[in-house]
């Protein structure tokens, strides 16, 4: 969908002095309860993933077959153990690392490549625009889930292939948003004036275009993170993503699926982790969008 009313307006005048746009955004984020909760949750999730090597009570890959599928609250294993007797808490912590890497990298790649291509297509226009946008249209012909699964199905399992597949999903999406925002901003009077006054292309891009285009793109990218998490974990869930014995939430869900008759709670945990993380990202994206006053 096109970005409508993409430009920031009506900044809140606080204590008389006009605040810069980004400071206002920051102020709003800090004063939204939902965003704060989500932000705190995310910080904890990311921190626990980063600090997994120090936080995890056990080696995530070492287990005792004598203690398989221990229930939640078992002695020494707070969240139980998996089908190979590995500590669930440790695996969830380590798994978060893998899932976050697998999910965030493609969005970042999409953000970088997509913004570049989109701004280029939107700013230069003409044949370049047609060429870039038609190519993106082709990828747009596939629903995201289908495209991701088809590419990783073709490439085979593995983290690298997951990253490639998901990047191919996200680049065209960001390109579309970036192009449409660029075209819209290009038509604005002050940019046209800057072009007419003979300023170089570089400064125009830097000062006006990117500043006003980046907002919508950032908001859009933030909404894509939760999709990326669900997809990345989904690929591993199908056996197309990260390969065992690595700890990754989708893969853990996949292997624990066989045990739902033995212990119904432990197999649900990795999915819960995916759910909570994806929800936190969504809430944060909502907060960001509201704070930046961008409608998607």
């Amino acid at each position, binding site marked *: 969908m096109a970005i409508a009313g993409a430009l920031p307006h009506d900044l809140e005048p606080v204590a008389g002095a006009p605040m810069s746009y980004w400071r206002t955004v920051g102020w709003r984020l800090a004063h939204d309860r939902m965003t704060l909760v989500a932000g705190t949750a995310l910080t904890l999730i990311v921190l626990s993933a980063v600090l997994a090597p120090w936080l995890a009570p056990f080696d995530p890959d070492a287990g005792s077959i004598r203690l398989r599928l221990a229930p939640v609250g078992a002695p020494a294993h707070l969240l139980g153990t998996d*089908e190979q007797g590995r500590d669930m808490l440790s695996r969830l912590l380590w798994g978060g690392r893998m899932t976050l890497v697998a999910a965030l990298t493609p969005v970042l790649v999409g953000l970088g490549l997509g913004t570049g291509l989109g701004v280029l297509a939107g700013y230069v226009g003409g044949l370049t625009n047609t060429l870039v946008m038609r190519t993106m249209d082709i990828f747009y012909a596939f629903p995201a889930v289908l495209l991701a699964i088809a590419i990783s199905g073709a490439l085979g399992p593995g983290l690298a292939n997951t990253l490639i597949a998901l990047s191919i999903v996200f680049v065209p999406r960001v390109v579309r948003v970036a192009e449409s925002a660029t075209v819209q901003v290009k038509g604005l009077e002050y940019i046209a004036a800057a072009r007419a006054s003979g300023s170089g292309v570089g400064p125009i891009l830097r000062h006006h275009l990117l500043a006003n285009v980046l907002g919508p793109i950032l908001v859009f990218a933030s909404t894509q993170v939760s999709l990326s998490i669900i997809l990345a974990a989904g690929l591993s869930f199908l056996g197309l993503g990260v390969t065992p014995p690595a700890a990754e939430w989708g893969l853990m869900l996949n292997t624990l699926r*066989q045990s739902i008759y033995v212990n119904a709670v432990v197999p649900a945990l990795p999915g819960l982790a995916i759910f909570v993380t994806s929800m936190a990202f969504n809430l944060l994206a909502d907060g960001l969008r509201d704070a930046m006053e961008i409608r998607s």
Partner: protein
Amino acid sequence: MRRLAILTLATVLTLSLTGAAFAQGTLRIGMTASDIPYTGGQTDNGFEGFRFVGYQIYEPLIAWDLSRGDRLAPLVPGLAESWEVRKDQPTKWVFKLRKGVTFHDGSPFNADAVVFSYESIKKKDAPHFDPYGSGQVSFRLASLTGIAKIDDHTVEFETNKPTSFVPYQICYMVIVSPAQWQKVKDWRKFAEQPSGTGPYRVTRFVPRERLELEANKTYWDAKRRPKIDKLVLLPMPEPTTRLAALRSGQVDWIEVPPPDSIPQLKGAGFQIVMNSYPHNWTHTLRLDKEPWSNKLVRKAANYAVDRVGICKNLLNDTCIPATGIVYKSHPWFGKPKEVYEYNPTKAKELLRQAGFDGGKHPAKAVHLISTSGSGQMLPLAMNELIQKNLKEVGIDVDLQPVEWNTLLTRWRAGFKTPDNEGLNAWNISWNFLEPWSGFGRFFHSKSVVPVSVNTMPYINPEADKLIDEAERTFDIARQNEILAKLHEVIVDDAPWIFVVHDLNPRALSGKVKGFVQPQSWFVDLTAVTVR
């Protein structure tokens, strides 16, 4: 009043009729295959395809007796009443065919049908050549080079050399109806309306979803006419799906329930059946490179693995420890010198003798394993345990998990490809249904890749001699003795890490009665009833 009486009578009649039909029962089986095995004769999906499709719709000339569970399933007359090798020309085998057998389409079974079936596999330029079916089975019939019809009920096979293994090849070739093929003239269409002589005939074929069969009421062997009247086969590759289907009553029988679920299933009134059969789960080692080039290290590894622990704690007793290619009660087991039990102390000692110590000269290896796969049991969990066991005695194994098909493709190419150069072993499970599968293809020097699949490579003149001798020995008892001697030699050389033999667990609903689990990859479904 009279109308009421008639109505009542009719109702009672209908009820009793449907009741009678119901008493015969329907057996619904959840298979592990991801698709319905090929129904056009020479089936696919490995031995599971033979088990549920190949040997139910069709029959070979020589069949397996699957009626007992207390002995290894032997070969018995199938569509052939008898067979013998010609004394004057040991490359020729004469088969006397059974008379009075008809295909499901009503056409008679005779020598022409045997020739037709053989040509569909072996004669590439025949109009009825089936490239797909041939690809599935021709390598199992490697020694057969020709066929001749002697009379309507006699055929003669020719082999490329004198070999006693011929019956073990003939048993994989099922006989299809030439009359039915002539009607459709296309193997795909034939597969949708197949016709064989087996105890079950196909009634409904829903691609990728289900295959419905009914009892062949005119089956030639009156003792083996099915007791149920309908058999439904459902592909369910996901273990969880099979389990859910069994528990919710969508099927009556599932192959390979997840080991963890077995206590619960038993508790809920399901029957768990298992038996030993010719299956081994091993690591095939690379013998031309350190560390496995050293026999002492190989023995050390075999003493390091806690097989009992694997079977008990991980697989819920659905397997037994393997101390050789075949299991102890098998006629080929013999009396190997080494009995590989869990003995880490001995393993460490052997490793020290071999000159490997943890510090300056560590034993390191890279093993290619699969993430899943037919017959692979629980490859990841099992391999992690083995890795731990080996680490405890000082052998560092790096496990490289790949998809099942990738593993097979890479294994087939052998160790000496750029991809595989860094590897020291692969973990693939095997069958040893007959001498060639069990020994010839792996341990004969003539089987080195790319001819066959001796990937290690295992070169041992003594083994070559024994394999050749067994192949030339037509007396089965004597042949078994030779193979037992061969087994002793191989176990002592330890070219593999022997781990476990699967017990082929299956879970049956309480309604299923009369099933005997044979010591075989295949099953006889004719005695089964479903109440």
